[in-house]
């Protein structure tokens, strides 16, 4: 399973490195969203800092949506989806590989976006180790749920519009937990670092559920979608 996961992740990341869709389209999109939020709330920079964590995670979620759509667009060309099924690769391995590739791209994006938040929203970055843990957990949840729903939507003609409808509601708990935990760590609201732990635990639970569900369900979904 892990050999297959590494193979699929390597393939997806190599395609991204060659096509540069992530760097030329997803990354600028994410920064554009951050800047538009800044324009919309510029009248009150204090408010901008207060809601920075929520805006950061909304931006990551929208970018994650693009990354997932891109991940399954790779398998749509010239029957490549059949190729993935025919390859004989383990379904769980394919899931972990595709989710891993999406997660790797999102983590890089999050680092760059965090720098953007510091500059644009005037936020002091602290508790970086804690923030890194939140990012890893939330990214695992976003990538796992996105990969499962990407497989569900991939076989449909209305996949571009259906995927957000499936993907965004399921990730509401992840968004909520990641935003609240990040706020507590950054101290942008009245909460303290200790208040972050319950949210991190919730984040861990949801991410584990999404990853476990994907490992079990992705193979059959790929067959039937």
């Amino acid at each position, binding site marked *: 399973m892990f050999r297959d996961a590494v193979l699929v992740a390597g393939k997806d990341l190599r395609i991204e490195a060659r096509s540069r869709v992530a760097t030329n389209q997803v990354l600028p999109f994410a920064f554009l969203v951050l800047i538009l939020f800044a324009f919309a709330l510029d009248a009150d920079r204090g408010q901008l800092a207060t809601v920075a964590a929520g805006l950061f995670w909304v931006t990551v979620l929208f970018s994650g949506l693009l990354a997932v759509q891109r991940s399954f667009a790779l398998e749509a060309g010239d029957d490549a989806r059949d190729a993935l099924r025919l390859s004989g690769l383990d379904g769980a391995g394919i899931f972990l590989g595709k989710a891993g590739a999406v997660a790797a791209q999102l983590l890089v994006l999050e680092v760059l976006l965090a720098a953007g938040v510091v500059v644009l929203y005037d936020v002091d970055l602290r508790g970086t180790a804690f923030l890194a843990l939140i990012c890893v957990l939330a990214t695992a949840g976003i990538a796992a749920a996105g990969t499962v729903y990407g497989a569900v939507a991939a076989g449909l003609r209305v996949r571009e519009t259906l995927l957000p409808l499936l993907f965004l509601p399921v990730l509401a708990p992840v968004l909520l937990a990641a935003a609240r935990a990040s706020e507590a760590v950054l101290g942008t609201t009245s909460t303290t670092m200790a208040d972050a732990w319950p949210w991190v635990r919730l984040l861990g639970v949801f991410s584990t559920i999404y990853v476990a569900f994907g490992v079990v369900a992705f193979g059959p979904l790929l*067959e039937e979608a």
Partner: protein
Amino acid sequence: MPPAAMPTAAMPVAVRFRAAVSLLGRFPALAGVDLDVARGEILLLKGPNGAGKTTLLRACAGLVGIVSGEAEVLGCDLTRDRRAVRRRIGLLGHGTFLYDELTVADNLRFAARAAGRPAADGAAAMERLGLAGRLHDLPVAKLSAGQRRRVALAAVVARRPELWLLDEPHASLDAAGRDLLDAIVREAAAAGATVLLASHELDRADHLATRRATVVGGQVQDGLLAVASPPEREPARVP
């Protein structure tokens, strides 16, 4: 080349379908297929458009479900687990099953490793299909239709399958490519692989095949192997 011995039901079988039914929506694309393919055979599937040749090949690959009847490929029961057989087969279909953004070398390396073969098998396939050299590092998207077809065939070769499923394999290939394809298929069969070939180019495919069957209306005519006649015995001598 001497004619191959006629395969019989006594030979080990790579593909065995009995009354196999497969639906595309509600339409029975395979409507009770009876088919045997002996190991090492090259079976040509003839038939008009829409007869079910492609569906039959896809069913052998486990891409299309069998809703009733029996279907066994390389000893794997497809009605129970369609995925078990896939590492052991190679399908050259209407699509190329390639990733456009990846180079020829990357695609073949992925095809080989996905089948559990070393990456070197991808390089060997590239060499065999004449793709080494200037095409090596080109993205597949930049190749002509014929070159893409060659890469798709190389991806099948790289997998070293036990069962080759070839759907209109000569399409888009130039004369040299067609000769090369025929040579590769004969080599594979000589090495023990089984080949199912669906083609409308009957002149060429007929020379390649060791047996022929016709697909009509989702059924296969002449799909079963002949029952081997018992070896002749010397008449018992009466003392």
